[in-house]
């Protein structure tokens, strides 16, 4: 964590933030949607942090949780804390997290204990996550949202004058004249004029409504703006106007932006640093140009290579991912991206449910004729918790050892195939005592954590977790195949 002097101090620090939504159908609830699943990052004053990801990656929920429009399930949000306190908090919190992650099982309580003792009072004082509505209202003065859909972010029954004035009326003790004067100035700042005050929202175009929403947000001089897809619903020419205004406002007022979007081109233009999210976790966070040219995480590579480029001469060397984004209510084990990852390792999180399909095809006698001498497969039982798969034959086998040899040979063959990495996650084959089948035990998957691989460049991928003994990460070259290094 470089904290050299010339850097501005940190305005917002979010650690291990989680937001789970219960799924309720009828009376009993069936599990939980892990919209935000342990996110840690910080933002410096006047900086724009871009948050990018596809649908269902949790970026909007993250924005709404930070704004405390919804209550977080776990984790802390430190905002507008005196800089020295903040330094101390960040040190303690990151130390605590590293302790928890490293020795997950044999947690030596003493160390964690001391850290917690120090942190609890700080959390009570500064962290927004478990504050009551009244206390949070003070912080609302200095953080405001800007939303995506221009047509649902303004109250159709209210005049523009009252819409812009609402935050001032509720959060400041300005007199009505002051408020009216300030509203007029704000309107001219965003390119509308005073008469627009006495109009209803339905009398404006999409672009003009976004400007009114922005005027409302900056009316009380906030230090942080959370912009959730501010220009996604707009046409290109109108989007350019809004983005320019956002830049002017930031230059003039030094406001920090949390810029959430799924348009990577807009993100690259607006953000100083970018965080890429996938299924509720940050998979990579880095300075903008570094991320676009020198990305580390395989998902970032695939995501950036999928963007069409407005120049017919650039031929993009595309990494096309198969399959669809899994549902956040039941994410894959270990690294959430492992089922679709082109460079996955055996340890990345392969679990029995990933294996049942491939095992089925393995027993196809066209594919592996040598297996046809074994009896026909009756049933494949997946045991997620036990991390094992049991395969039952129709009848018993002559000799278990012979069966194990044949299967091991076939598995080696499968492992050599292009996406045979799944089979390399098989630890051992245990023949069933009754001889009519066998159980496959898989190696226990590891969970990747956001690590600072290079200064200021974080990634959460087991490729860089310096697997036992192998110092040079196998896939370090993913950065070099920069898609755009022309």
């Amino acid at each position, binding site marked *: 964590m470089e904290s050299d002097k010339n850097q501005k101090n940190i305005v917002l620090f979010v650690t291990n933030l989680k937001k789970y939504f219960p799924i309720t159908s009828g009376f009993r609830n069936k599990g939980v949607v892990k919209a935000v699943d342990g996110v840690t990052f910080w933002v410096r004053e006047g900086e724009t942090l871009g948050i990018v990801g596809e649908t269902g990656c949790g970026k909007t929920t993250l924005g709404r949780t930070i704004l405390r*429009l919804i209550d977080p399930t776990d984790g802390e949000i430190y905002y507008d804390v005196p800089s020295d306190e903040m330094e101390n908090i960040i040190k303690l919190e990151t130390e605590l997290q590293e302790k928890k992650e490293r020795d997950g099982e044999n947690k030596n309580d003493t160390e964690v204990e001391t850290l917690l003792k120090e942190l609890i009072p700080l959390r009570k004082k500064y962290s927004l996550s478990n504050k009551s509505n009244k206390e949070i209202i003070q912080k*609302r003065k200095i953080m405001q949202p800007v939303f995506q859909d221009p047509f649902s*972010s303004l*109250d*159709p029954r209210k005049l523009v004058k009252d819409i812009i004035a609402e935050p001032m009326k509720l*959060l400041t003790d300005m007199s009505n004249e002051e408020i009216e004067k300030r509203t007029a100035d704000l309107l001219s700042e965003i390119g509308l*004029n005073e008469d627009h005050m*006495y109009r209803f929202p339905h009398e404006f*175009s999409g672009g003009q409504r976004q400007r009114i929403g922005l005027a409302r947000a900056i009316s009380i001089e906030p230090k942080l703006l959370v912009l959730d897809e501010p220009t996604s619903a707009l046409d290109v020419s109108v989007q350019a106007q809004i983005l320019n205004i956002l830049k002017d406002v930031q230059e003039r007022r030094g406001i920090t932006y949390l810029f959430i979007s799924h348009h990577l081109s807009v993100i690259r233009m607006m953000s100083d640093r970018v965080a890429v999210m996938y299924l509720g976790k940050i998979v990579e966070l880095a300075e903008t140009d570094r991320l676009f040219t020198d990305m580390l995480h395989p998902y970032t590579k695939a995501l950036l290579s999928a963007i069409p480029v407005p120049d017919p001469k650039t031929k993009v060397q595309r990494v096309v991912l198969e399959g669809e984004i899994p549902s956040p209510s039941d994410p894959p084990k270990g690294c959430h991206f492992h089922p679709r990852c082109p460079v996955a390792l055996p340890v990345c999180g392969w679990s029995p449910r990933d294996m049942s399909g491939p095992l089925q095809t393995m027993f196809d006698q066209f594919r592996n004729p040598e297996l046809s001498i074994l009896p026909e497969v009756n049933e494949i039982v997946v045991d997620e918790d036990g991390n094992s798969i049991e395969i039952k034959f129709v009848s018993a086998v002559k000799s278990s050892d012979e069966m194990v040899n044949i299967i091991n040979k076939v598995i080696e063959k499968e492992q050599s195939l292009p996406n045979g990495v799944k089979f390399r996650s098989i630890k051992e084959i245990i023949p069933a005592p009754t001889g009519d089948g066998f159980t496959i035990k898989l190696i226990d998957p590891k969970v990747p954590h956001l690590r600072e691989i290079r200064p200021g460049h974080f990634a959460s991928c087991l490729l860089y977790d310096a697997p036992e003994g192998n110092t040079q990460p196998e896939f370090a070259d993913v950065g070099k195949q920069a898609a755009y290094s022309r």
Partner: protein
Amino acid sequence: MDANVFAAKGGEKKRNPGLDNFITTMKLFVKTRIAFVGMIITLIYFLIALLDAVYPQYLGVTNLSSMLAFLHGQSVSASAQPIAPTTVGGWYYWLGTTEYNIPIFPSILASLKYDLGSSLLIVALGAATGVIIGTIAGYFGGLLDEIVMRITDIFFSIPFLVFAIAMAVILSRVLPSGSSIDVIIALTIIWWPIYARLSRGNALTIKSLKFVEAATASGSSRMRNVFVHVMPNVLSAVFVQFSLDLGSIVQIFAGLDFIGFHIGGVFFPELGNLLNIGQPYLAQPYLNLTTGQVLSSTIWWPIVIPGIFLLIFTVAINLMGDGLRDVLDPKLRR
């Protein structure tokens, strides 16, 4: 009205925005002609009801007691048979008479104030309670929402009229007053769940809209959100249901009176009551008392004429309600 059309108009300075909004609504409303006709007829009905309530003597037939006095003036004995509509003997008899020679035309005019007055009261009370309960339940959700939903389920599981009969007849024995108040209270108790469920549904959709979240971010408390942002937007849908319900409440009110509730006593001027009095006569032939000659096989006017006035009112108010729904429908507004 698109933005640059507005720009062309050079944006006048301060003008009363609420009035402007009302004018555009009226302009749109007038365009749908039949709805406008519906509104005119409804206004006429309310005018008569108002006039009669405020200046009873103006219409010649004052309220209940004076109507009886008027009758006493005439021989009130059970008349041989109701007189058919004739132009003889002043405007009282234009629409004929019913039992005891009660003239139909003035009794209808006198009864409007009770019919419309009480149904307006019922729907207004029902809407007020229903909207408040429904909006709060819809916005806060959770256990409160679950309870309100279960209660409205129970209220919806009994057919309106059966529930109205049970409530009215029990309330009349429980409440001291005894007169028509208990039917009004009974119908109000039945009517609020309709508005509760309607405003709950609307509150759920509005709650998810971003301007409510923006208000929360601007420091507005949840309760303030309900009254400042959610409820005004719920009212447009409620207003349409309000006008449609006026029509159905009048029907139920007349129905109760028709089956014999005699809410204000036997001679209480109310359309349902008139129909109740007139019912036995429809099977009797209309004879020329002197010659015994059969003039018509049925004495239809004590039934048909009050019914037509009731029908015209309900049709007119339904036309107005449909017209309002199209005008207030946000999609058309843009």
